[in-house]
């Protein structure tokens, strides 16, 4: 199945909730759009499991920092769902500075038969009231209400790049370029700083935090990645300020590939724990890597996303594409990993078969219920029909944000301002 919509703005984040029933997207205009999966029904087999718009709301507005004379963008950087604890759904959304907790509730009944008020809410003339009645709940059209429950402001001097909910469901962390804060979901006027890599002298700054995440099972462990390509696993039990990592994961540089761009392309743009909690997945400019938590010296697996760009690094530096931050994702069973690339291509790597595939998210090549055709980028040499040459790749069409359903083979791909949702019924996409 295939679903596409075109909001006016560029999608900046995509996230499934813990059951996969809901899919949230944030965009550059500060809006959040939530999709809900239609329940599968035997009556309409072709509507099985399609995602339709469930709710839309304005999460963040543009602000102006008068002290610095700078605008604060309303762009939603990240959305994270809280595990569902009652009938309501909750999510955290953040822009560069402020994190907000939103509660999403459904209303499908309303009380009727008040004694003192009439249907429209006007007070009744008491002389007309001759008997008492008990108001009853009558069904109404489903209404989805979204309310801001908490606003976690003034916690960050620098730009927030990640938020992550702890497995304890009570705390969460937010990371900016230089600091990571720990918040309690119920307390907005206070947060604990758990990582601070700001140097005493800003002139000495050479490394920033690029992403961070809590371990899915161990509520005391979290990881953060840096612009120098390293990962630091920290244990909050060890000390209050987790500047000293428990473990440092770093791969030594390959001297034969050394160039002025080595550091830039080693910068980790995203880090994700596997569902099992045994591995971490990182994305840098040209590769995705799987790290075993028990091995700090090098990744256990490395996959080339688009190695043909290695000879184009200077051009990509000039047009700033080298700074693009791609995300990565695990499938539910941690057997396949996915990440985006240019030309609206995205890549999937099967860790078991070692096979990989390149697919394209575009209107032209995707029709509802059609099977995605694998694409190929040719680097010279033999060129097959339908191959794209490296020089004709469109670098303005980048797939930075992707998400995988927690249990099923459903993926959400954000291509600029279009959202694509692909489902795999027959598990035949990997060739």
């Amino acid at each position, binding site marked *: 199945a295939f679903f596409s919509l075109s909001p006016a703005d560029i999608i900046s984040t995509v996230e499934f909730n813990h059951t996969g029933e809901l899919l949230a997207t944030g965009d550059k205009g500060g809006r959040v759009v939530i999709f809900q999966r239609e329940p599968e029904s035997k009556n309409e087999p072709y509507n099985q499991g399609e995602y339709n718009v469930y709710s839309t709301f304005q999460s963040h507005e543009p602000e102006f920092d008068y002290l*610095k*004379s*700078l*605008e*604060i*963008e309303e762009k939603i950087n990240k959305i994270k769902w809280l595990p569902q604890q009652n009938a309501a759904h909750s999510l955290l959304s953040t822009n*560069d500075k402020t994190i907000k907790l939103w509660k999403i509730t459904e209303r499908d009944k309303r009380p009727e038969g008040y004694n003192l008020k009439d249907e429209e809410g006007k007070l009744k003339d008491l002389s007309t009231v001759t008997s008492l009645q008990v108001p009853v709940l009558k069904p109404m059209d489903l209404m989805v209400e979204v309310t801001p429950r908490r606003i976690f402001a003034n916690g960050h001097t*620098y*730009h927030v790049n990640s938020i992550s909910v702890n497995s304890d469901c009570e705390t969460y962390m937010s990371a900016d*370029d*230089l600091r990571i804060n720990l918040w309690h979901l119920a307390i907005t006027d206070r947060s604990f700083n758990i990582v601070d890599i700001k140097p005493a002298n*800003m*002139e000495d*700054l*050479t*490394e*920033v935090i*690029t992403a961070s995440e809590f371990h899915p099972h161990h509520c005391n462990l979290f990881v953060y990645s840096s*612009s120098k390509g390293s990962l630091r696993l920290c244990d909050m039990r060890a000390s209050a300020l987790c500047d000293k990592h428990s473990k440092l994961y770093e791969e030594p540089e390959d001297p*034969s*590939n*050394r*160039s*002025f*761009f*080595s*550091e*830039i392309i080693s*910068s980790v743009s995203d880090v994700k724990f596997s569902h099992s909690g045994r591995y971490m997945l990182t994305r840098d400019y040209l590769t995705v890597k799987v790290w075993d938590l028990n091995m700090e010296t090098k990744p256990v697996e490395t996959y080339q996303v688009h190695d043909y760009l*290695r*000879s*184009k*690094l*200077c*051009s*990509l*530096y*000039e*047009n*700033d*594409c080298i*700074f693009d931050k791609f995300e990565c994702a695990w499938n539910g069973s941690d057997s396949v990993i996915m990440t985006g690339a240019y030309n609206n291509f995205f890549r999937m790597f099967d860790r078991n078969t070692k096979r990989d595939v390149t697919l394209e998210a575009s209107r032209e090549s995707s029709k509802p219920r059609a099977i995605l055709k694998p694409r190929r980028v040719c680097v010279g040499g033999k060129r097959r029909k339908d191959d794209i040459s490296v*020089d004709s*790749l*469109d*670098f*303005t069409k980048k797939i930075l944000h992707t998400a995988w359903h927690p249990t099923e083979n459903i993926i959400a791909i954000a291509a600029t301002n279009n959202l694509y949702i692909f489902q795999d019924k027959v598990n035949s996409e990997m060739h």
Partner: protein
Amino acid sequence: MGEEEGLPQTQLLDTMFVRGLKRKCFDGEEDIEGTLAGIKAIPSYNLQRQSLLDMSLVKLQLCHMLVEPNLCRSVLIANTVRQIQEEMTQDGIWQMINSQSSGQASLDRLVSTDILCRSSREQAEGKHLPGCGTFSKDFEGDQAQGSSETMSTTSSVQAPRNLQGNVWDMESPQENKGNFQKSLDQIFETLENKSPSSVEDLFSEVDNSYYDLDTMLTGMMSSTKMGHCDGLETFSSPANAAPNSNCKSDLNELDHIVEIFVES
């Protein structure tokens, strides 16, 4: 910004940089004549490294916008600049260059992308010291002809200067290195403070050593203070710009004219 636009002038840089730091024989002390004679169709490593340095500095300057600049990007670019600077230092080039007048140095140091694409024959002809180069694709398109002509004129004027001038792509000595480091520091301080005045300060400080390529391209006076190029800014559009005439006398004349206009 299309990738197609970026490719032409940096294609050669890509070819060179993909190999990493495998430099050719133009090593520090070795010989300057060797450097010159060794230039073939592929531009020298030093030249390309200088281009990358200049490109990086432009990027750092241009990141002051309405919204707070991306700190990660700035840090990565600054680190790249430091890397290049360190390598240049290790090359020992610093010691080799006599201190030229700073105005001259600023002009000499910029590299025309035109040079990168120059044929070996042209290169063999002149002692092609660069005039003011730019990285702009537009500019290069317009100027390709003009600059190569003025190049040869310039180079003949410059030829007597000294052979050390042939290491034109190197930064001049410690003083500029100091300026340079100061620029980096200021960039980070600016990122910290973010007050408009510090942005101005940054520009004015850095411009003692470098062109603001952006303003030169548009031919408009910017709010930044320029070094010796004010006169050029006022009177030339990019198409007519004669930034390659780095004869001091021309500049002095233009400065003089500017002063008259300003006073009136």
